[in-house]
């Protein structure tokens, strides 16, 4: 510190005790831990809600809200509209809200984020959409942090899964991919299969796949005989990918929850 600067500091201390007092510790405002995930399968078109609900239930925790956001086509058959003002409870730790593709597009493209200064809650969001509906708004893939693909151990499923990865990687280069295999757990065969497939994807797309394990959809009575290792789907503080769009989506979910049950929300926040 130069002599002039030292004099200035001494002078300031003389005229006000404020400058002499040790600086108070300012509480660090941590960025909310928001991540957006999705589960898709080239072989289970129409089962997106089930798959996303299942995986969400695997990682949902009481201390961190987990939401399902279903993106619906306005002409979908047999899918009752969930009122945007009332998130639906799915079990103890999961809530589902829904919106149409055009609403999602408007939300993402026109919103400039919350300027109220209130901090968002940390949250995991599962974006539930049918893959072919991405034609409505392909940029929805840019919202995702992690994309889980449930593939069958056959050539067609792997090919279609690879195409989905290629699309996802092209639109969102930061997207992480995880693979689970549909069927009975066969550790050796599964390891070999996923090893080969993973090498291929790494070579072609320069993308590393996460391996989650097995899910036998033919065995609902035994919780689908799931042999999954979903720990890697949890939020990792060292690998955040903040994006305005993601926070806009989280903010939209939070505002719906606040509207539907403000008391519960306050309690959850406290």
């Amino acid at each position, binding site marked *: 510190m130069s002599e002039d600067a030292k004099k200035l500091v001494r002078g300031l201390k003389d005229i006000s005790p404020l400058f002499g007092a040790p600086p108070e510790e300012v509480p660090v405002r941590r960025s909310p831990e928001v991540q957006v995930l999705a589960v898709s399968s*080239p072989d289970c*078109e*129409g089962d997106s809600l089930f798959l996303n609900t299942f995986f969400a239930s695997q990682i949902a925790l009481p201390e961190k809200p987990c939401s399902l956001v279903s993106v619906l*086509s*306005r*002409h*979908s*058959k*047999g899918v009752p509209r969930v009122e945007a003002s009332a998130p639906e409870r799915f079990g103890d730790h999961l809530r589902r809200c829904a919106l149409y593709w055009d609403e999602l597009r408007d939300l993402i493209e026109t919103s400039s984020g919350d300027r109220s200064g209130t901090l968002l809650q940390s949250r995991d969001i599962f974006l539930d959409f049918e893959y*072919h*509906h*991405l*034609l*409505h708004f*392909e940029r929805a*893939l840019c919202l995702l942090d992690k994309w889980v693909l449930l593939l069958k*151990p*056959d*050539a*067609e499923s*792997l*090919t*279609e899964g*690879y*195409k*989905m990865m*290629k*699309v996802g990687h*092209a*639109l969102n280069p930061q997207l992480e991919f995880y693979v689970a295999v549909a069927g009975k757990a066969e550790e050796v065969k599964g390891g070999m*299969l996923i090893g*080969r*497939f993973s090498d*291929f994807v790494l*070579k*072609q797309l320069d993308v590393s796949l996460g391996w989650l394990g097995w899910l036998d959809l033919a065995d609902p009575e035994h919780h689908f005989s799931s042999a999954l290792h979903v720990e890697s789907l949890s939020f990792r503080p060292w690998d955040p990918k903040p994006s305005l769009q993601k926070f806009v989506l989280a903010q939209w979910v939070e505002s719906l929850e606040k509207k539907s049950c403000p008391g519960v929300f306050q309690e959850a926040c406290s």
Partner: protein
Amino acid sequence: MIAAPERVFRQEIFLSIRSSIQELHADKVILEDVNGAPFLFKSKDAQIWARIFYRSMRDYSVEELQEEIRKLWVLMPNDAVLYLFYPELDRQQILKMNGVSDRLSFFEYAGPCATASEKAEIRICKWMPSWVQKTDPLPGGETRLRIAVPSDSFLTVSCLTREEIAGLSELSLDLSRG
């Protein structure tokens, strides 16, 4: 001559596919033209055409398929897309047709099956966009058809390169060997 139950069956499939296309392209008006039923329908602006087959793709030769597509091309605007629906797709046929057009998509359907609403519905099982891979001129001066794929479509990037097709085929062979 087609038996009456078969006719009803086709009609159900046709209506259900048309309804699915309307769902996919909510911004378009899909026409209900009785003349085309149960084989062909299009959107009002003629940008989307759908041709429905009721037999496996394997029952047709590549030449037959190309001829069918060429006939429709005559009627279609240059930038229109054509969806082809089959009860069963044949990947090899689709690969052989690589180069015919970048505006084709092949769908495999299953059904119809009755739903809770008593309305028969089909299920789209597979979907394969058929785009030509960009290739270099072949030895001897022969060139393959080179079609520019619109760069703004997310479908564009799902097109596989020759190297990717080879890699996936190798993987498939390993799988089939067990």
